[in-house]
Structure formats: C-alpha cells, structure tokens
C-alpha cells in the first residue's frame, strides 16, 4: 500500500488547509487523511456513526452522541474543519465558538436553560437528579447575572468563558 499523501494531491491539501483557516499544517492534514481513511472502512468518503462508535475511547465519552450529530457524514474537508477548533493555533474565540455549537444543538444561534440542562444531563447521567441539576444551574446562572428564562447568545458565552483559560488542544500524530 502506498502512503496516504499519494491519494491526496498538493492541490487537495491546500484546499483543505484553506477551508480550516490554516489551523493545521500540511503534514497534519496528511496525517489526518490517513486517519480518516482508517476510520472510513468502506471508503465511502465519510465516516458513519457506527465507525465513530467503534473507537472505544470516543464511545464511552458522555458527549459522544452530541458530537456524533455534528460530525456524522462529514467529508474530509469538513472533518478537518470540525477538528480545527482543537488545533493549538486556534484562538480562544474559535474554541468558544465550538463549545457554543455543542450547546446550540438546533443551530438557531441561542442557548436556553433547556439546552444547558441537556448537556449537564449528558455529563452527569443518573448521578444527579433532575431537581439537583436545575437547582445548580439556576444558582450559577443567577450568580452570573442571568436567570432561568434568559437566552444565552454567543456574546454571552464569550463573556463567561474568555477568562476561564480554556485548554482544548489535540495533537495530531505526524509520522
């Protein structure tokens, strides 16, 4: 078998790099392509949910279902764009954008109390009761100057999370 870059032309690599705002180097894109082909076992051009779930580490992640909806069926270009938020070169704003998208499941640009609850439910499972979750969320929202009825927009996320010192980086193993 040849190596992956034999199937990706220089032109393809540059196109992908442009699409992900140059957040990955060309070597990283080649490595990601090799990984993409490894996961896409039937060479369809995208990775199905089943193939993602066959990665045990991914499957046991509490947010796997949410992420699956975002990443299922993406072609390679969009796959790299999806992962670009985790590049060490990505700005805090880009990372917060990603987090916002995870909360805003219906893509309407706003996050309600219900959305916050859903994510908290994914993260805590049966180890917190619904009342406890509502109580905790209500409390921290009030303390930050919001209420249960508030709708959070991207600007709010920026305000809340910019100071949090987000560490959200993944290293692409380059051979």
């Amino acid at each position: 078998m040849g190596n992956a870059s034999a199937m990706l032309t220089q032109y393809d690599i540059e196109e992908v790099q442009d699409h992900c705002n140059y957040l990955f180097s060309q070597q990283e894109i080649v490595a990601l392509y090799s990984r993409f082909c490894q996961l896409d076992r039937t060479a369809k051009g995208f990775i199905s949910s089943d193939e993602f779930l066959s990665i045990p580490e991914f499957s046991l992640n509490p947010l796997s279902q949410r992420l699956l909806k975002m990443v299922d069926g993406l072609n390679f270009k969009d796959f790299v764009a999806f992962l670009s938020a985790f590049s060490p070169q990505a700005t805090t704003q880009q990372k917060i954008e990603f987090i916002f998208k995870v909360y805003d499941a219906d893509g309407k640009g706003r996050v309600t109390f219900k959305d916050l609850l859903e994510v908290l439910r994914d993260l805590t499972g049966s180890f917190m009761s619904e009342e406890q979750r509502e109580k905790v969320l209500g409390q921290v929202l009030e303390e930050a100057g919001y209420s249960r009825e508030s709708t959070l927009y991207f600007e709010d996320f920026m305000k809340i999370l910019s100071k949090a010192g987000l560490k959200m980086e993944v290293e692409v193993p380059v051979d």
Partner: protein
Amino acid sequence: MGGLDSSSMETDLDRPNIEEYLTTETIREVPKKLHLSDLLDISPTLTEAAGAIVDDSFTRCFKSNSPEPWNWNIYLFPLWCLGVVVRYGILFPARVGVLALGWIVFFAAFLPVHFLIRGHDKWRRKIERKLVEMMCSVFVASWTGVIKYHGPRPSRRPQQVFVANHTSMIDFIILEQMTAFAVIMQKHPGWVGFIQKTILESVGCIWFNRTESKDREVVATKIREHTQGVDNNPLLIFPEGTCVNNHYTVMFKKGAFELGCAVCPVAIKYNKIFVDAFWNSKKQSFTTHLAQLMTSWAVVCDVWYLEPQYIRPGEIPIEFAERVRDMISVRAGLKKVPWDGYLKYFRPSPKLTERKQQIFAESVLKRLEEK
C-alpha cells in the same frame, strides 16, 4: 477536597488501569466555589473526544503498518522485479505443490486410521497426533517458515494450559507443528470450518461463539473438564480473544486463569522483514492472507516457551492474567494496552461512561456544598 477521586486512582498501579483511560482531566484543581463558567466549560470532555477521533490506542492495535518501500531507485527496482518473478513464478507454484502433496499424504493416512482402527484408541490417537504435527510442518514449509523455538518443549501432563499472544491463525499452526495442542477456536465458515470440524476434532478442540452470551460459561466448563483428563492433549488458549498486530497486547480474558492449574505462557514475535504476519480479519479473508504469506520470501518468527505460572495466594484471576500478559509482552517486546479485544466486535460497556458521569457529578455536588 476536590481531588479525592484522583488520588485513589493514582495508587491503583498494579491493577489493569482502565481508569487511566477515564482520565483525571475531568477533575480539576480549581477554587471550591462553583461558577457558571465551570459548568459551561466542557472543554476537557470535548478534548478527550477529539483526541480519540484523531488517534486512539485501541485502533492502533489493529493497524497494519505498511512497510517502507525500498525499491524506489533504478538499482533496486529491477532487483525487486526479479524477486517478484521468483516469488510468484517459482516459489508460489512450488509451495502450492508441496502443500497439495502434503494434504494428499495426510488424508491418505488420516482417513483410514480415523475410520478403520477402532478399538485401539490409544494408538489411533497417537498416529493422528503425529499426522497433524506433520501436516502443520508441511504448512509451515509452504510459507518457508523460519521459526526459532526457545525454552523447554511443552510436555503432556494434566492440569496445565498454555496461553499465547495472538496475531494470526498461523500462530496455532506454528505451535502445533512442535506439539499437538488441543485448541479453543472461534467457529469459522468455509474450508477453514471444514478442517476445524474434521481434523482438529481428533486433537481435541473446543468451539466457542463470540456472539452467544451464555457461551462463556459453557466453554469454561468444557475447558475445566479437558484439563482434568489425563489423556487429553495440552490445551492452548489465546486469551486476547482476537488477532492483534504483534506490536501490542490487549487485555487477557480471565477464563484460562481461573482453572486452578498451571499456566504456561508462550510468547510469539514475528519479524516483519519479509512479510507482516498480522491477519486483519476485517480486511482479508484467511485465504487471501495465506496467499500473501505464500508469495513472500519467508515468515520469520521467534517462539519462547516461558516458565509455568501458578496463581499466587491472594491474587485474583484478573491480576494473574495481567501478570502473565506482562511476562509475554516483555519477552516479545510488545506494548500493553488496557482494552478488551472484544471491543473490536462490541461497544464498550455503558459502565465506563457512567463512571465518568459519576466523577463529574460528584465533583459538582461537592463544590456546591462548599459554598
């Protein structure tokens, strides 16, 4: 304090540390009071998920690394072409011939012995054993196996099982040519299944079916009975339960280690110099795999028979299994990963996800109390 759970994980160094993979990134050493940003900041969980998408230690176990092409210059390329001609045009037909001849001789001897010599069971089984060993030697010759055996040869005694790391079905053939083992195998379809049914029954084989949930208990009983029988061939078990790429070992199933008898470890390491012996059952059928072996120069490997191990007082079977896995991995130069081989076929247990949820929930509730 907030770090209660992380400290208890750090002391569990002797046990299979699945918990290492439920990383402590989800627990952070932060001020006790809970803020909105703490709940909103799901970056650790997201990072773990993205990390798994980009690279994960489980898939690495089953990756066949393509060899570096060495035939890329004008001097080496014609040599390589000549090699191809020799391998496909001369060696392959010769080997197929040897194999066919071997099968003919084998069946000519085996079938009469199996069906006609009734009553002298001990003799019949001795002859059948020798024939199977011979057939395996023919197989090994058919891919020019260059095998070095180290350590004392297995002896026929009751109350012992042999365990080995698993790379391909040829592991079994390589070991079988030296000693006729009884083996536990997954039932295969096609001509392999036919061979399993007819010939391997004579050396004593136990079948299992991964997809049946009650199967484990049935098989465990059969194994126990076998090890107690004085006349049975020594039992060979591959505790990984699946073929791994000979760079890593996955977790050993404890079935072979809770029998109360001696466990003799066998380590097998293939040298990839001429061919990669890893059988990626999802990518190739066994026939294709065999054809690949038969059109390469040789299959080179080392087999080490290690010292028999007994379960220590106070040791549970899982710990015993891990200790033996350690011995085999060190001897064969393989890296250990804390994953169950069956994850190739099934999803991980929801308990692992629940454990993560529990850690997070407990830390949130604790910090709520700290107010």
